[in-house]
C-alpha cells in the first residue's frame, strides 16, 4: 500500500493554495512536512488524507485514485488528526476513540466486542488507558491530542497523518507526543512547526514554500543554513552531532549567519 501525490494542485475558490506537488510516502517512515505559515502544509495534508479532492493532478492510495476508492474505504487506510478539533458535547474518552470505528460499522456490522478491543488497544498505545472513562472536557491539551491520535489509530490505518500535532503543548508534552508517535507501528506524515523536532524525529522532510514542495530529503539534506534562510528568512547554524542528527541554533535578528556551514545540499534531489 502506497500513498502518493502526483502533480497535485488545490484551489480555494479561484485562489491557488498549492500547485504541482508530487510526493511519495514510503512505507514505515516518519515524514515531516515543514514550511512557513501559509505555505500550504495543511492543504497538502488534507489532499494527502483524502479529505479534499485535488483540483489538478492525482492523489493515489495503492496506485488507485482516491476518488475511486471512496471515502469509507479511504478511512480504513488513512487516519487523520487535524490541527485543532474540539467539541462541546459531553462525551467520554472511550466514546471519542470509538468514533474511529465509524468506517467499519454499518447496520449489518454493528458494534461488537472486537471493536471494544481495538478501542482499548488504541487507548493503550497512546498511554491513555486509565483515562478511558474520563469526560472529554476534563482533559488537558496534550491528553486531548493523544485521544485524537487514539481515535485515528482505532481506524487501523496504514498511514497516520498529523497536522501540527504539538501545537499548544508545552515542551515536555511536545517531545512526549512525538516520541510516542514515532514508536507507533504505522507510517506517519506530520506537519511540524518546530524544525528541531523535525530534525529529531523525521526520517525524511518535505519542505514547502509558497504552495510548492521545494525540497524533499533527509533532515541533513533539508535543514541547511541556506534553506532556512531562503525559506524561513532566519539566520541559523546547523550542527551535526555524533549520531548524525542535526541541531539548529537560531540567531537573533534576521541576518544571515556569518558561519554558514556548507554541510547540506541547497536543493536536494527528490
Amino acid at each position, binding site marked *: 500500500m502506497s500513498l502518493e501525490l502526483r502533480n497535485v494542485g488545490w484551489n480555494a475558490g479561484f485562489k491557488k493554495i498549492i500547485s504541482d506537488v508530487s510526493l511519495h510516502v514510503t512505507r514505515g517512515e516518519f515524514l515531516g512536512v515543514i514550511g512557513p505559515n501559509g505555505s500550504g502544509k495543511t492543504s497538502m495534508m488534507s489532499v494527502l488524507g483524502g479529505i479534499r479532492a485535488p483540483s489538478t493532478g492525482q492523489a493515489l492510495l495503492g496506485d488507485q485514485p482516491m476518488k475511486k476508492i471512496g471515502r469509507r474505504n479511504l478511512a480504513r487506510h488513512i487516519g487523520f488528526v*487535524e490541527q485543532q478539533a474540539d467539541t*462541546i458535547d*459531553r462525551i467520554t474518552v472511550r466514546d471519542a476513540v470509538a468514533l474511529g470505528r465509524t468506517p467499519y460499522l454499518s447496520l449489518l456490522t454493528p458494534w461488537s466486542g472486537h471493536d471494544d478491543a481495538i478501542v482499548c488497544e488504541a487507548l493503550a498505545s497512546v498511554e491513555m488507558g486509565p483515562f478511558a472513562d474520563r469526560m472529554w472536557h476534563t482533559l488537558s491539551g496534550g491528553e486531548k491530542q493523544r485521544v485524537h491520535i487514539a481515535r485515528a489509530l482505532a481506524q487501523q490505518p496504514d498511514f497516520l497523518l498529523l497536522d501540527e500535532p504539538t501545537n499548544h503543548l508545552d515542551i515536555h508534552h511536545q517531545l512526549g507526543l512525538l516520541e510516542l508517535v514515532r514508536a*507507533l507501528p504505522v507510517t506517519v506524515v506530520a506537519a511540524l512547526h518546530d524544525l528541531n523536532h523535525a530534525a529529531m524525529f523525521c526520517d525524511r522532510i518535505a519542505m514547502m514554500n509558497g504552495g510548492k514542495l521545494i525540497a524533499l530529503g533527509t533532515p541533513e539534506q533539508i535543514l541547511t543554513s541556506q534553506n532556512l534562510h531562503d525559506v524561513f528568512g532566519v539566520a541559523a547554524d546547523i550542527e551535526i552531532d555524533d549520531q548524525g542528527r542535526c541541531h539548529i541554533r537560531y540567531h537573533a535578528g534576521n541576518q544571515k549567519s556569518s558561519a554558514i556551514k556548507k554541510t547540506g545540499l541547497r536543493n536536494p534531489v527528490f
Partner: protein
Amino acid sequence: MFETTPVQQPVQPPRQSLAGRAYLARAGVSLGALVLLVGVIAMAAAKGETHIPLGTVFQTIANHLWQAGYDVDPIDAGIIWNYRISRAMVAAACGASLALSGAVLQALLRNSLADPYLLGISAGASTGAVSVAILGFGAGMVSLSLGAFVGALVAFGFVALLAIPAGRGAGAIILAGVAGSQLFNALTSFIVTKAATADEARGVMFWLLGNLSGVRWPDVYLALPVAVIGLLVCLWYSRALDAFTFGVESAASLGVPVRRVYVVLIAIAASMTAVMVSIVGSIGFVGLVIPHAARFFVGTRHGFLLPASALIGAVFLVAADIVSRIILDGQVLPIGVITALIGAPAFAIILCHGRVLR
C-alpha cells in the same frame, strides 16, 4: 494495518461492551417515554371542556381499532375520536418532528442554538400564511396550510441559495438562515401592517404562535407518516451524525460522505418542519430545547438521542396542548405560549440538575 502494539499500561476493559454499556438504562428511558406518550395521548383525549373518564377513552379506541363493541356514548366517542385523539396524534407527530429536526441541525451545524426555524422555515411559512389569509393569494382555492407550506419551501430555497455561494459551511448556513428569516419576517410584518384588519391581524398572530384547534384525521395521515419516515432516515444516519462530534473535517476523515449527509439531512429536517408548521403554525421552543433535555437523559450518541428527542418532543407537545386547553376556562391559549411558559422553567431545572450530576 497497525498490528497489536505492546500494551504499556493496563487498560480497564469497558464495564460492559460499548454497545451494551448503559444500554438497558437508555432503552428503559425510551420505553418509559413511549409508555408516557400513550398515557399522555389518553389524557389528552380525556381532558378538556367536557371531562371524559379514561376508561371511556380506552373503550372508544378499542371500538375503533378492533371493533370491540363497548357501549360508549356516541357524543363522547365522537369528541374522543374525531377531535381529541386526532389532535393529540398531530401534536405528537409535530413535537417529535421539531425535536428531531433540532437535534439533527444541532449536530450537523455544531451549534447548540440551532433549531428547525434557523433555516427560515417558520418565517417563510408565516409569509405564505399571511399572503393567503390577508392578501387573498389563490383566491380561496389555496388553504392557509398550503400557503404556509409553499412559503416555507420558498424561504428554505432562498436560504440554501444564499448559503451555497457563501461557502456551504455551518457558519454560512446559520448566517444565511438568519438573513432569510429576517427578510421573510419583515415581509410578514409589512403585509400585516399594510393590509390586515385588527381581527385578521389577531387571527394571524394566533396562528403564528401555534394552533391545533382545526386539526382532524386527514392531518394525522399527513403528519404521522412524515414524522415516522423522518425518524427512520435520521436514524439511518445516526453514526454519521456521531462522526460530526469533532467537526466536518474530522467527520470526512472518518469516512463520512459529508456533503451527501448535509444535503439529505437538512432537506429532511426542512421538509418535516415545513409540513408541521403548515399544519399547526410555528411552535417555538420544542426544536431548540428538547434535544438538549434529551441529551441530559440519554447522552450524545445519536442512536439513542434521536429516538429519545422524538419521544420527549412528542410527549411534551401533547402535554402542552392539554394545558393550553384547560388552563383558561372557555379559552384556548396558543400552544407556543405554553411550550415556552412551561418549557423554559422545566429546562432550567434540568440544566441545574444536570450540573449537579456532573
